[in-house]
């Protein structure tokens, strides 16, 4: 600020420079902060209509159990058959769109609303459902379960 002495109003000019610098710095921060946060990848991995990575570990799905997960905004069901195989189906009953569940006692999929039964291939085997459940492809990669629409 050697020049300031040449100015008629050294303090005023100095103040304006300081004020401008500070507010410009703050402004830069207020722009960089959201951009920086934006660049950090979110903790939840991205899912798409085609595939979804479940927040479930393969080991946590015991044989002869099933659980519901979200697949493209619709419920889907992941089951591990008594034989130990992982399978996934749409969990929307083909009768009246209730959410189906896994019945360990029957060892197959069951809809509570009107007693619809589906076997472990998603095929409607008893009750009102007119069609089988849509089948998805399950891949267990290491510690992850990835479900995708069958091609």
């Amino acid at each position, binding site marked *: 600020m050697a*020049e300031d002495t040449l100015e008629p109003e050294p303090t005023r000019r100095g103040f304006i*420079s300081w004020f*401008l*610098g500070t507010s*410009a710095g703050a*402004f830069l921060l207020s722009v960089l902060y*959201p*951009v920086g*946060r*934006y*660049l*950090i990848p*979110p903790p*939840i991995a*991205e*899912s*798409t*209509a*085609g595939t979804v990575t479940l927040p479930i570990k393969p080991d946590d799905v015991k044989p002869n159990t099933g659980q519901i997960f979200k697949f*493209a905004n619709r419920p889907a069901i992941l089951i591990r058959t008594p034989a130990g195989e992982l399978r996934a189906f749409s969990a929307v009953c083909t009768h009246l769109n209730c959410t189906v569940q896994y019945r360990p006692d029957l060892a197959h999929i069951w809809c509570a609303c009107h007693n619809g039964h589906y076997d472990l291939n998603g095929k409607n085997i008893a009750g009102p459902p007119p069609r089988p459940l849509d089948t998805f492809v399950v891949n267990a990669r290491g510690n992850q379960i990835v479900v995708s629409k069958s091609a």
Partner: protein
Amino acid sequence: MLIPPNRHGRLWTWLDTRVGLAELEKLLKKKEVPVHRHTLWYYLGGMTLFLFMIQVATGILLLLYYRPSAEEAYESIQFLMAEVEFGWLIRSIHAWAANLMIFTLFIHLFSVLLLKAYRPPREVTWLSGIGLLGVALGLGFTGYLLPWNQLAYFATKVGTEITGVVPVVGPFLGRVLRGGDEVTGATLTRFYGIHVAVLPAITTLLLGLHLFLVQRHGMSVPPSVEQAGGPRRTMPFFPNFLLRDLVGWLSALAALAALAAYFPTELGQKADPFAPAPAGIRPEWYFMFMFQTLKLLPSYILGIEGEVVGVISFGLGGLFLLLIPFLDRRTARGEPSHLFTWIGIAIIVYMLILTYLGYTMVPTQ
């Protein structure tokens, strides 16, 4: 930016000998901006440029999360809005800045038109400017489809159908634009390529030419001011005008931030080609006057389909707008040209009325 350029440090000298900063400084200092009662309009070009820069920056950020396919586009934006921090902000700013940019671009265009800034030797500047308008509209049209939601899908369907009306080459053009006979994932991929690569590249070229010519010819002084004579005041572009520009840009940014926070861009429902078209499909506001004109035209005019007449008229209208510097001989000779002033006003009034009608008329009519 705020350091006066006469404060030369060691770094300055080092850079100057290698890059030639002094020449740049001379260039900046040489540039003067005329001061008169119409100076206000000079800010609009810069404002449009600033908004374009915002588009580039936010567009690049959006590219980091966006996936251009029918299966994933909608979901990737849903993810961006829900999970990515400030994703909503970046997307909303991109959408709002696009609208603001086209708005300021139109005002810039009309100010240039009415103040006759297109007269020699600035004809090429005008041509490149009209080119930029076309590119901006193209960016708006292609960008609208990218979220792959219901409204965008059907608006694009209607929009691309209009190209099919063009005689002879129309159906072919429609197919090329859609990447097939229907609006599908292929259209999305195509629009994505056009939106992020083709049009930005063309913009860069045209914008470079436009800015170079503005620098070369300086600001045009309206004929009315020139004729009034008097001592012409000027102000240095750097820093006086640029600082004023900055004030405008910051205000625009503040407005954008407020719009993004209070009216974040919605995502709507995912596009479903088999769903019935939702009610109230309308194009973006800057296409509304054309859309409404086509709607109001009778089905046949002199034995030709109304839509065909409409589309051809808009084509000719665009051509007329492009060629104004060459048609307006009086202005070129330095004489007052009231005809073209009135034509300019007529265009503005026409667009305003048709846009108004587009938003107020009952859709079934």
